[in-house]
């Protein structure tokens, strides 16, 4: 099943898990599954209209899903999703 990589700032909402196995035929389904597994992540990733917040970058393998079909992008069993956070430390 596809795996989704969780960045450090969000791991406090996934019991410290750095990778979560997700199921679904599309990126959106996989994200819904993630929200079922870890409901407290939702406000950090989605706005009130159930859209990904603009500062949230979700990559499928090496590509930003914005460049693909967004949440409707089809997902393969071996795919790897990665959430890329805005971090500003220096």
């Amino acid at each position, binding site marked *: 099943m596809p795996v989704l990589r969780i960045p*450090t700032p969000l791991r406090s909402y996934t019991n410290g898990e750095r990778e979560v196995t997700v199921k679904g035929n599309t990126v959106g389904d996989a994200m819904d599954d993630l929200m079922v597994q870890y409901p407290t992540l939702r406000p950090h990733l989605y706005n009130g209209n159930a859209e990904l917040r603009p500062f949230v970058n979700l990559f499928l393998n*090496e590509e930003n899903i914005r460049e693909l079909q967004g949440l409707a992008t089809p997902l393969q069993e071996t795919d790897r999703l*990665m959430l890329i956070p805005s971090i500003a*430390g*220096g």
Partner: protein
Amino acid sequence: MLPMLSHAEILRYSRHLLIPEVGLEGQRKLKQSSVLVIGTGGLGSPVALYLAAAGVGRIGLVDYDVVDFSNLQRQVIHGTAGLGELKVESARDRMLDLNPDIQVDVYNEPFTSENAMRIAADYDVIIDGTDNFPTRYLTNDVCVLLGKPNVYGSIFRFDGQVSVFDARRGPCYRCLFPEPPPPGLVPSCAEGGVLGVLPGTIGTLQATEALKLLLDIGQPLIGSLLLFNALDMSFDFVKLRKNPRCKICGPQPEVTELIDYEAFCGVPGHDHDDGSAGVDWDITVSELAARLKNGNHLSLIDVREPHELEISRLEGARLIPLGQLAARLSELDSAEDMVLFCKSGTRSARALELMVSAGFRKVKNLKGGINAWAREVDPTLPVY
């Protein structure tokens, strides 16, 4: 015409001269080139040290802070003897000790919309070593408007990111992050912490990219974002593309001059605030001490993380980490007087905002946090 190297410089740079990709000509190019390093903290330290050692002819440093004890765990360009000194001067002294043949220009001022274009105009490459969102967006916009490469690095706890944003040849920072996260969502290193060696890893990668750009060798990280995680020792690369709707480097830009970046991001342009939730909502440590002494009944709510209790704690305080607060509001009685606190007042101000929006009114934020309490009321507690 490239500048000549003295015999002393030839000896100093001999290990560079032996690499065909650098060679005598490359070293002369470095001597002629200039780099502006914004921030002389965790990232700026290795960047400035390595670029100085490598013989970049002119290096500019922008910072307005002084060297603090809590900087030395990672800001290796500074030393214990330099505590309290201006960071730009402490860094310049170390760089000139390492390499007296270079020129170091210092700008002891915050990098702002007023001075940024003037400061950056005269440099070939800009390095983003800042510690906050407003200055990162400012640095990006300056580089796009001036047509200069922005060697980006950013860190948090065990995670680092590196890229080269050059809007002439690829995407910019705004293409990837069109909007900043809402204030308070992403903790700063001052609140969330950072592994001391991490800025070393990320800063040396930034210095590497800067040297490649100046020498025009190799593949710069243009259109590619490197994601490093120290715990997993993982290096992942993702592709970045120019965003056709980018507000500054897209075909129809809305941003054509520098803006108010603190207003844009909703946070101050530095990573240490005064730990205040606003005058109406703050309580000072001396007021709190007086109220406790008078036997006033109030609940102390500690919104820090559990591991921070090992460093310092207030007697009788109840721990509800900020991340759990929203889900645990039902445990609290809105009729009760409450004082929220954290390390320095930043997280508890967020907690207060959350509670007020949920209808709580009898809550106060301990201004300056438990660190202010340690400084002013109970010196047996450490400051961290």
